[in-house]
């Protein structure tokens, strides 16, 4: 029996094309996979999976306590849902510091942006797709562990009582996770839009978070300035907004930092960063 190799030549494609929706979906999927290191060598998987794993660790520890030491849990040792973000805040800003530069800077540095904009995507749909990818990745950390925490606690009898109470907590969980993910996404993308060097963007993002916390602390705690300067702290502000979403006071006194000022600060930073990214990409030269 002999084998024959047929040259299929160039084939026409007359099938349906998925258009803009398909292109956007492809870009979102590809970006998420790339960021998680899928279809890439092992070293690209280490940081994202380690950070995601660390974000789940507190939830798993407290669930273990609730399961095996219920008397400890009953004494209030288990943190509130709103407090969970504080436990994983380092994972949040470390994750965004790696994810956003990986997804934005590389496209400009390697010229992929030009290839993307030669597809059905345009600058706006490209940005929307990239934002969706970064936001989805952030939700893995903001919503994932807390939702697991909530679901498992509820099954063990430590959750809210009654259908509407469950719905209310679910809504609060979703809202707080979305707000925090959007806030970090916007900051990470804004800093990543200023350079096509991934390392620079990562360092800049980490610097912005750590620096803002240091400056805010110096102004309020060191120099005794108004407590409104706490809102400069890019890590603590969204973390302290979360308890307010759950109707709890949090660590900052309501009299010193009313909820509306915290909400306004988070919205302003998110919207400002998003506008900045949009402006940067409108001005960007892409055909080379």
């Amino acid at each position, binding site marked *: 029996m002999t084998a024959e190799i047929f040259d299929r030549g160039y084939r026409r*494609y007359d099938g349906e094309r998925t258009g803009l929706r*398909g292109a956007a979906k492809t870009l979102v999927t590809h970006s998420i996979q790339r960021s998680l290191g899928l279809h890439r060598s092992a070293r*690209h998987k280490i940081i994202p999976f380690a950070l995601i794993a660390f974000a789940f660790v507190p939830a798993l520890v407290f669930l273990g306590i609730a399961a095996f030491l219920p008397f400890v849990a009953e004494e209030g040792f288990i943190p509130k849902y709103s407090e969970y973000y504080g436990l994983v805040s380092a994972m949040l800003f470390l994750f965004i510091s790696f994810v956003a530069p990986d997804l934005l800077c590389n496209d400009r540095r390697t010229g*992929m942006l030009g290839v993307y904009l030669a*597809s059905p995507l345009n600058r706006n749909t490209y940005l929307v797709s990239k934002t969706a990818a970064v936001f989805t990745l952030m939700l893995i950390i903001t919503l994932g562990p807390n939702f697991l925490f909530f679901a498992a606690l509820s099954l063990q009898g430590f959750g809210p009582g009654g259908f509407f109470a469950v719905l209310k907590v679910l809504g609060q969980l979703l809202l707080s996770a979305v707000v925090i993910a959007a806030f970090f996404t916007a900051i990470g993308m804004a800093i990543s839009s200023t350079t096509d060097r991934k390392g620079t963007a990562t360092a800049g993002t980490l610097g912005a978070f750590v620096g803002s916390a240091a400056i805010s602390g110096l102004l309020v705690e060191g120099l005794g300035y108004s407590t409104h300067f706490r809102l400069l702290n890019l890590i603590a502000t969204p973390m302290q907004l979360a308890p307010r979403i759950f109707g709890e006071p949090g660590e900052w006194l309501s009299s010193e930092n009313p909820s509306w000022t915290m909400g306004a600060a988070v919205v302003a930073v998110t919207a400002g960063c998003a506008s900045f990214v949009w402006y940067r990409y409108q001005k960007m030269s892409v*055909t080379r």
Partner: protein
Amino acid sequence: MSAPNPSPTPLAVGVDVVKRYGSFTALSGATFTIHSGITGLLGANGAGKTTLLGMFLGLHAPDEGTLAVLGVDPYQAGADIRAHLGYAPEHHTLPGDVLAADFVRHVAELHGLPKAEATSRASDALWLVGLGEERFRPMGTMSTGQRQRVKLAQAIAHDPTLILLDEPTDGLDPVQRTDMLHLIRRVATEFGINVILSSHLLDEVEQICDAAVIIGDGRVLTEGSIEDLRGTGSDIIVELETVDAAAAVASQLQQLGHRHQHLERVVIVSGDDESVFDITRDVCAAAGAGIERLSRRRFSLEDVFLEQLG
């Protein structure tokens, strides 16, 4: 497969296209018509070629004038037109850790192909450009020549009507360059895909293009088929067997009052109608000069380019 079918609708038509970036005018009233086949956008670096390619893709709107690609305004049509275009950018810095097959498949999916079809066609496209065995290599490990081929593969994988190639031979050595030009010619003639390629290299445009649009200082200096452009001269050239014979012919033409130039064995006679042919032939016969060649003077694209630049 066959060459692109001549279409009643030109591939691209620009009328008085103006594009400014702040105080810099990249295109200052470009008017052109590009038909099916392979067309070269020819011009020095900074002439406006890449700007024009970007406008074909609908990335920038003209500040003045009108532009149509495949019969529609690319800036307005946006996603719909770009699904049928392929584009290979000039730069070579593709994502280094991505496999060539994954990259081509991803671009095919972006242009609307379902995943299975995109995977299959990506593999086919890489085979067709000669990278079948290399398709599972990360692009960062490939040579410049191989990366240029990957760029061509991603441009054709989704079966576009038209591909735009920005300096497709940039960075290639002479052998790779010849191979790439052959491949581009094959894309047009065998795969039936129209090609617009930008280049500052006159000989490569002359070698593979059916037509050229010559751009300088943001304007279209001239355009047309390569044959027409090279036939722009209105002279007859006669090459004689000896220098003396050429001198005798030149002398007789002088007596008859015909404008001409005499360069060793060659005499160039002004005018290219039949009567000039007849007179030149008769003069050669009368002088007893043996003719080695009698034809219309052929210009190289370089002659045309330099003449247009003044």
